[in-house]
């Protein structure tokens, strides 16, 4: 029986990854209204960008991580031009199916490039351990939690302390008004996609050493990020964080205390429960349409 504090750290680390994926998803949703079903594949790309730079190109980790994130930023911009711009006025289902379709392409491009054999992406703190309250845990887990906390802090600074971030929030709130205020709306929308891709990149790099890098990892991540988003509240950043942590913890604790086969049923059950009873989630705004 693994002891509780180890499970908690483990759950929070996985939850951090889900939270980052969910935050990227939410940023894109609030700014552009797109429900990005390829969000999980974004994270998978992040992991494989790490594989390409650290394993294939044998870069040392600081420059490897940098190169991987730069590649992700480029990919975010590409997605903006190729998928978002042509479809921005389409009905929501069209966008859902389109992002799924692009996700299928992403998954299979990865398959063609890297093959179906999983990779083990090393962590910069490979093999190190940390002792917390008498329990020994891999340093990578702690690093993931710390990095996520730092990322959240940076995001907060971006959104509340820089003109660019404040502009992005203005676009998310009312695109028409933002346009009238003279903001370069398209550039800010593109930035939202780039930011989402970067966050997915960070999530992917951190997830690589926890799971194996596998081209099929995108779907489960997307499903967890969706659950996190609904539970926390659609469109809410604090909600994405809390939801991600909740899903990570329920997965790890559920696997060890309830049943490893049904561990995922817990988060999806709770997600459906929230949708039925409180669709605005923990932090979301009340949903109402005008009569």
């Amino acid at each position, binding site marked *: 029986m693994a002891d509780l504090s180890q499970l908690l750290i483990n759950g929070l680390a996985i939850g951090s990854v889900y939270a980052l994926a969910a935050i990227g998803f939410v940023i894109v949703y609030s700014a552009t209204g797109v429900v990005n079903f390829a969000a999980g594949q974004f994270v998978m790309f992040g992991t494989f960008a790490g594989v390409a730079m650290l394993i294939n190109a044998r870069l040392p980790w600081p420059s490897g991580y940098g190169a991987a994130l730069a590649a992700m930023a480029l990919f975010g911009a590409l997605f903006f031009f190729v*998928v978002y711009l042509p479809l921005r006025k389409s009905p929501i289902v069209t966008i859902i199916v389109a992002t799924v379709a692009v996700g299928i392409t*992403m998954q299979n491009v990865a398959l063609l490039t890297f093959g179906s054999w999983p990779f083990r992406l090393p962590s910069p703190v490979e093999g190190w351990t940390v002792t917390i309250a008498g329990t020994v845990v891999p340093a990578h887990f702690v690093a993931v939690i710390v990095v996520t906390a730092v990322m959240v802090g940076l995001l907060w600074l971006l959104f509340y302390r820089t003109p660019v971030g404040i502009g992005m929030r203005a676009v998310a709130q009312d695109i028409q008004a933002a346009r009238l205020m003279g903001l370069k709306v398209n550039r800010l929308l593109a930035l939202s996609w780039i930011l989402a891709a970067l966050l997915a990149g960070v999530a992917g790099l951190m997830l690589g050493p926890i799971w194996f890098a596998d081209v099929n990892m995108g779907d489960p991540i997307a499903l967890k990020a969706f*659950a996190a988003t609904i539970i926390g509240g659609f469109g809410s950043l604090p909600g994405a964080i809390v939801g991600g942590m909740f899903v990570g913890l329920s997965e790890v604790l559920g696997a060890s205390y309830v049943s490893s086969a*049904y561990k995922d049923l817990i988060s*999806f059950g709770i997600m459906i429960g929230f949708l039925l009873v409180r669709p605005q989630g923990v932090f979301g705004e009340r949903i109402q349409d005008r009569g």
Partner: protein
Amino acid sequence: MRVPFLITAVIVSAGVLLSLVLPDYHLRLLNLSVVSAIALIGLNFAFGYAGLISLGHAAFVGMGAYGLAILTTRMGWSPWRAMLVATTATAAFAGLIGLPLLRLKGHYLALATLGLNVSFYIVAANWIDLTGGTNGISRIPELTIAGRAIAGERPFLWFGLAVLAAITIVAFMIHTSRYGRAMIAVRDDETAAAMSGIDVTMTKIAAFVLSAVCAAIAGCLFACHVRFVAPEDFSYAHSITYLAMLIVGGESTIVGAILGAAVLTFLPEWLRFLGSAYLAFFGLMMLAILVFLPSGIAGLGRYLPRLRSPTRAAPASVSAKELGP
């Protein structure tokens, strides 16, 4: 009523003709198209008419298929009786879950039905005593008519076409009835529909239950034909494929549903020369269709009448932004 009968006759005779000339492997694909078309006519009620974005349609197909598989292999029931019960049970489940679920709209409903499909998959893959887990259930008996099994691709195709024809005609009858109009009205404008005396909730549930009935029938046919079911056949990826088929077929029409099912089932075959790059290409091709042909294949036909009456308007569409909370 003449046009639908004509269309149905064309589809069925095309199918029968093909059954005489195509090799067995293609017949197999044709059979899968017919089964998907039946499921899609169902999804067309929910999504095409009533506008309910369901990402859980494959779960209903799966419930039909597993219901029949379990009742025939575990309880020794005849496939016909099992089909009736499995379909009824799926419909009842859809009605029960629809009651709370269908208050949700847009992407909320999409994610809730997605969660439903994922949950179905998890249960089907893990409740080993009942479902055989990931190994699935094999040795499902064939359907029989007057003591003769509907075995082999060709006879099954004839039978499948007969079922498809029957369902198509029923679907057309519903389409032109007050119930079909009510569904379309609910999708166009829920508030105005309620203000015209339509019970919006009941209309949505009816559309959802109808979609589940068609899905379950498709699932039962699938189970009896392939004679083996496994969770993989009913994952949420299939639900998305169904939606994609409906959009490719186009324009929320019954004919579009049938076309979409056939085209997307045969597509991998037509694109075989791409080899392992097929799926990577498929995603981009779907994207191109959505961008350049948003009203699908059936929408192409619209260009002809449009030349005659240029004022004909495109159906109203709601953009993602408007549906946001």
